C-alpha cells in the first residue's frame, strides 16, 4: 500500500511541477501566436503541435537520442553529464514536452477570444502595451489559461509512452501511475491494477470537472434593448 501511495503522490508532484514549468513559455508562445504575425509562424505552430500527433514513444525516442551520451545535449557534446536519463528529471522533460502543445493550443484560443480592441482601448486610457497585457488581456483570458493548465496537468498525469522510454519504469524511482498500472497488469496483480485504476479515474474526474466548471459561461448575455 505504501508503495501505491508514493506512486500516486510522486506522479501528482511530477505532473504539477512539469505543468508549472510549461505554463510560462506556453502562455508566452500562445500570446505570440494569437496576437502577432511573423515570418515562420505556421511552421512554429506546427512544430509545437507535433507531440500531439506523434506516437508518444516516438517523442520519447527522439528525446532519448537528444539526451543520449552522443546526443545534442549528451555528455560528449556538452562536456559534462546532465544526468537526466532514467531519473525523475527525465519524467519532467517527457511530461513537459508532451503536454506543451495542449497548453499552447488551449491558451492560444483563450487569448484569441479576447477582443484586441480592448487592448487598444487600454492604450488610449494611458497604459503601455505591457500594462495592457497584465490589466486587460491576462485577466480576461485567465479562465481559459487555468483550463489550459488543468489540461496540461492531466496530460502529464497520464503520460506513458515518452516517459517509459526516457525515464524507464523503475519502481520506487521513476515509476508513475500509468507505468505502475502497466506493471501491475503485466504481473497479473489485479487488485493493485484495479486500485490504481480507481485512483486514476478519481484524479481525472476532478481535473476535467474543474476545467468544465471554469469554462462555464459566467454571465447570461443580455440581449440589447
Amino acid at each position, binding site marked *: 500500500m505504501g508503495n501505491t501511495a508514493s506512486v500516486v503522490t510522486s506522479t501528482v508532484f511530477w505532473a504539477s511541477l512539469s505543468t508549472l514549468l510549461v505554463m510560462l513559455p506556453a502562455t508566452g508562445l500562445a500570446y505570440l501566436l494569437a496576437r502577432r504575425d511573423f515570418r515562420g509562424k505556421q511552421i512554429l505552430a506546427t512544430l509545437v503541435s507535433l507531440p500531439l500527433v506523434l506516437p508518444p514513444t516516438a517523442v520519447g525516442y527522439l528525446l532519448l537520442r537528444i539526451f543520449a551520451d552522443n546526443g545534442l545535449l549528451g555528455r560528449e557534446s556538452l562536456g559534462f553529464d546532465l544526468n537526466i536519463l532514467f531519473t525523475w528529471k527525465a519524467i519532467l522533460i517527457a511530461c513537459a514536452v508532451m503536454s506543451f502543445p495542449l497548453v499552447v493550443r488551449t491558451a492560444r484560443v483563450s487569448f484569441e477570444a479576447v*477582443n484586441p*480592441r*480592448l487592448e*487598444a*482601448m*487600454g*492604450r*488610449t*486610457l*494611458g*497604459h*503601455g502595451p505591457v500594462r495592457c497585457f497584465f*490589466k*486587460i488581456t491576462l*485577466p*480576461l483570458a485567465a479562465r481559459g489559461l487555468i483550463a489550459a493548465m488543468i489540461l496540461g496537468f492531466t496530460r502529464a498525469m497520464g503520460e506513458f509512452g515518452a516517459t517509459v522510454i526516457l525515464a524507464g519504469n523503475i519502481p520506487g524511482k521513476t515509476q508513475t501511475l500509468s507505468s505502475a498500472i502497466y506493471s501491475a497488469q503485466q504481473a497479473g496483480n489485479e487488485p493493485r491494477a484495479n486500485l490504481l485504476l480507481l485512483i486514476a479515474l478519481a484524479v481525472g474526474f476532478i481535473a476535467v470537472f474543474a476545467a468544465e466548471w471554469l469554462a462555464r459561461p459566467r*454571465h447570461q*448575455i*443580455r440581449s*440589447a*434593448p
Partner: protein
Amino acid sequence: MSVPRLKLQFELPLDSFDLEIDFKFEQQVLGIFGPSGSGKTSLLEAVAGLRRAARGRITCGGQVWLDTHKHIFRPPEARAIGYVPQEHLLFSHLDVLQNLCFGQRSHNAELLQEICQLLELEPLLTRNVTQLSGGEKQRVALGRALNSQPKLLLLDEPLAALDGTLRRKILPFLIRIKERFSLPMLIISHNPVELQALCDEVIAIKAGKIQRSGPALEVLSAPELYDEEAATGFENILPVRVRAQDAHSARADYGTHQLVIPIPAAAIGQNIRIGLPAHELLIAIHPIKGLSARNQIAATIQRIQGDTQRKILTVEVAPDLPQLVAELTHEACEALELKVGQTVYLVFKTSALQVYG
C-alpha cells in the same frame, strides 16, 4: 488662437480606398459625417494613434503626434485622448467604478464625483458592466473617457446604437459635457440633430475624402449629402425656453415667437432644444387662419437647393436664431413661385416636435 487645436494632414490606406485628410480645426467640436464605410472610424483611430499605417502629420494643440518625415509617432498612451468607440469596449472583468477609474490619470476624486453626477452614474457604480443597458454602457464609456483627463475627446457615433428614447436621453449628457469641459471633441455621427446640437463645424467624408466642411446646417442641407442622413431625414434644432405648461402641451419662447410644444421634462424657465423634422415643416406664402396646426411663424428664404424631384429650403426666422431647413417637392416649390429673399410662413404641428432636454 495662434496654434490650431487640431491639424490633420495624413493618408491612411484602407481596403478599397485611401483616406486622405487635410484639415485644420480651431473650434471646440468637430463633427464627422458620412455614409458607413467612408473611413470615419479609421480617421478617428488614426488620430487616436491606433492606426500605425497612417502617413503624414498630426498635431494637437502644438504637440506633434505623428510626423512620418521626422519619424515621430506618439503612441496612443501618450496622446491623452478620451476615446469612446461605437461598441463601448467596457472591460467585462471589472465593475462600473473600476472601469471609470481604469485610466492612467484617473485619480482625481472630485472629477470622478462630478462625472458621476453629470452622467448620473452613482446608482451603477457597483454593477457588472455586462448587465448594463445600451444607454448605461454609453454613459459609462463616456465617463471612463472623461475621467482619464483627456486633452481631446473622440466619440464614434455616440447615439447610433441607441433607440429613439435613449437618444433623447444621451444627447443632453453630451451637451452638458461640451459646456462643462471645454474639451476639443471629434464626433462621428449620422444624426443631424446631434451634429447641429453639438458641433461648431462639420466635415462630410465620402470614400476617404473630405467632400464639404462648414457649419452643421450648411453642410447637412447640401443636396448631395441630404439623402445620407439618418433614415428619419434632416431634423431642425430649435433652442427654446419653456414658458408655461398646461395639461396637454407647453408654451415656449423661440426668439420673439411663441411655440406650442409637447410637454417637456424640464421646468418652466429652462432652456431646452426642440427637434423639428424638415419634412414636417409646411410652407405657406400667406398667413393662414383657422388651421389645426398650432405653430405658425414668419421666415425669410435664404437658399433654395435641390433637383427636379425635391427642393431643400433654408430659411431664417431671425438673425440670432439658427436657420431652419424645409423639404418640399419640386412641384410645390414651382407652384408657390418661391424665391430667395421672400417672406414665407412656416407651419408645423405640436405633435411633429421632439423634445430633447
